[in-house]
């Protein structure tokens, strides 16, 4: 009886898919929330007012968190070394000012082709580069950005922001606090209050199609045989290199954000009965049609002799997806996109994808 009660609880809370898949989903989400980057934070030498200079601060930064939220942990290391005056805090990585509203894990995946552990960052308390970075007034700015992104995601998924607008002030506060503290339990308790539509997990649905539970819940119930389109909030960060490389350490450093193409646009996720699964590759190619792999190359022509002929030349000139990272994981592109979304998205319901491409030769 107890087992069925537990299953009933799980199904009631989430309202969809079979119980086995439910447990696995929760486990994946737990890993995402527990993901963290070890940071080694150095005070910028122009701001060191003490001798000897302070040693770097060592901080474990949650992947789904934001750099300004770490300041209260970092500042004690340096406050005795700072010159007098007011703080305007910002971070840089090898001279590149860091956009504070991008989740820390995404910054790391994007800027460190070869992951650097600990990740060496520089903190500044003066000289905010307001010509390139939007202002940050600490936690309030980060919270505002989070809620705004949540509204945008809601608009994409539900077609309107009403679910977020209708949340009580205290629920919004509690939700933000759960994200700030990395408290997945609190966040999970609060998620039903957000009333975000489901993005149905295609893989799980197929696995449990005979289970009665699969009929319940979610706003994207699809009637058998019909085509259903869902819009999925995605933020795609594309970094390109002009030459191919053997190792990730050979990827040149980034000097400016102009080297990144940022795409904040939803992916139209087409699902229909009998159609083959919509994969992560399908999703990325829908945003980056330049990198669609040639069908002939894709369908495995291993038997054919590959010499320096036309097909090799086209591979050279064609652009190529070299690396796709989500939550620090190098993704296999054949994974069903719906699984990726449901398990790897950030708390504001956005899926952040870092992509490294080799440019097509023009």
């Amino acid at each position, binding site marked *: 009886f107890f087992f069925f009660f537990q299953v009933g609880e799980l199904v009631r809370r989430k309202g969809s898919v079979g119980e086995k898949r439910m447990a696995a989903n929760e486990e994946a989400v737990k890993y995402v929330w527990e993901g963290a980057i070890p940071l080694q934070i150095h005070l910028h030498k122009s701001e060191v007012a003490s001798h000897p200079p302070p040693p770097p601060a060592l901080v474990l930064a949650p992947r789904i968190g934001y750099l300004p939220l770490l300041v209260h942990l970092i500042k004690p290391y340096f406050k005795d070394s700072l010159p007098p005056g007011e703080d305007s805090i910002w971070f840089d990585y090898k001279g590149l000012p860091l*956009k504070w509203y991008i989740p820390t894990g995404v910054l790391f995946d994007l800027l460190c082709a070869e992951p650097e552990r600990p990740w060496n960052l520089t903190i500044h308390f003066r000289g905010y580069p*307001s*010509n*390139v*970075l*939007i*202002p940050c007034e600490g936690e309030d700015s980060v919270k505002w950005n989070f809620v705004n992104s949540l*509204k*945008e995601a809601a*608009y*994409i998924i539900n077609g309107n*922001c009403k679910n977020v607008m209708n949340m009580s002030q205290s629920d919004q506060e509690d939700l933000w606090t759960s994200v700030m503290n990395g408290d997945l339990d609190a966040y999970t308790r609060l998620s039903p209050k957000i009333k975000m539509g489901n993005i149905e997990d295609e893989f799980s649905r197929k696995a449990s199609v005979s289970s009665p539970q699969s009929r319940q819940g979610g706003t994207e119930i699809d009637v058998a045989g019909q085509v259903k389109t869902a819009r999925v*909030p995605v933020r795609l960060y*594309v970094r*390109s290199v*002009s030459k191919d490389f053997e190792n990730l350490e050979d990827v040149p450093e980034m000097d*400016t*954000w*102009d*080297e990144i*193409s*940022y795409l*904040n*646009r*939803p992916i139209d996720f087409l699902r229909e009965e009998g159609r083959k699964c919509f994969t992560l590759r399908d999703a990325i190619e829908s945003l*980056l049609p*330049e990198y669609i792999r040639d069908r002939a190359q894709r369908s495995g022509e291993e038997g054919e002799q590959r010499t320096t002929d036309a097909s090799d030349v086209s591979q050279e000139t064609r*652009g190529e997806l070299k690396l796709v990272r989500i939550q620090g994981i190098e993704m296999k592109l054949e994974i069903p996109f719906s699984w990726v979304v449901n398990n790897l998205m950030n708390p504001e319901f956005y899926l952040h994808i870092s992509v490294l*491409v080799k*440019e097509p030769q023009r």
Partner: protein
Amino acid sequence: MDSAGEVVNDGKITLEGFTVAARAFADKWKRHNLSFPPWSWVPLINRTMLKKEEGYLSLEKIIILSSLEGSAEEESLDVTADWSEKEESVDLTVLVQNVEDEAHYYDYHIVYSASYMVPMLYFRGYSSDGKPLSLDVIKRDLPSSSVSLLLESKWTFITQEEHPYLNRPWFKLHPCGTEEWIKLLSESSSSDGCQIPVELYLVSWFSVVGQVVGLKIPREMLI
């Protein structure tokens, strides 16, 4: 979802529709709004993507000569930039006639939001030395009617955000609610129902949004 030929009933527009609407808007502006320089279409071409059909509308170096006392009246929107040759920089010694007046420059970009499926207005102001203007200073350049609208309306408010393509802080008129008032506009203006032809979408949109930032469009554009 309709093809780019028509605006969908709910006040939103597709990316393809936006591109068509943008061209139509720029053409009409050029023909009927002679007191202003024309809008240019900036295609999104960069190292990773060749998307000639995607882009945004840009209107730059609009000068507002504001006296330091009150907010500018609309008559003082004095466009003196030499816009026929875009690359040429403005000769400032000719413009600033009164030592009490300060020339403020404004750039406006109309960018498509794929999330909200409506256009968004981004703008920024800067002084003659290139220094960005704060929102407080910008508000003083806006028509006084706008300032109260901004304070009271739930539909129009300004936030400082990063430009989606230029990696710089700009100001943006918030898009949430756009499709609602576009719907209202189309219901009241068209006799045969709620559809605005796509060519007029941006014109209708700008007839409201432009007013907030003090850019009026002549009635002829609405035909």
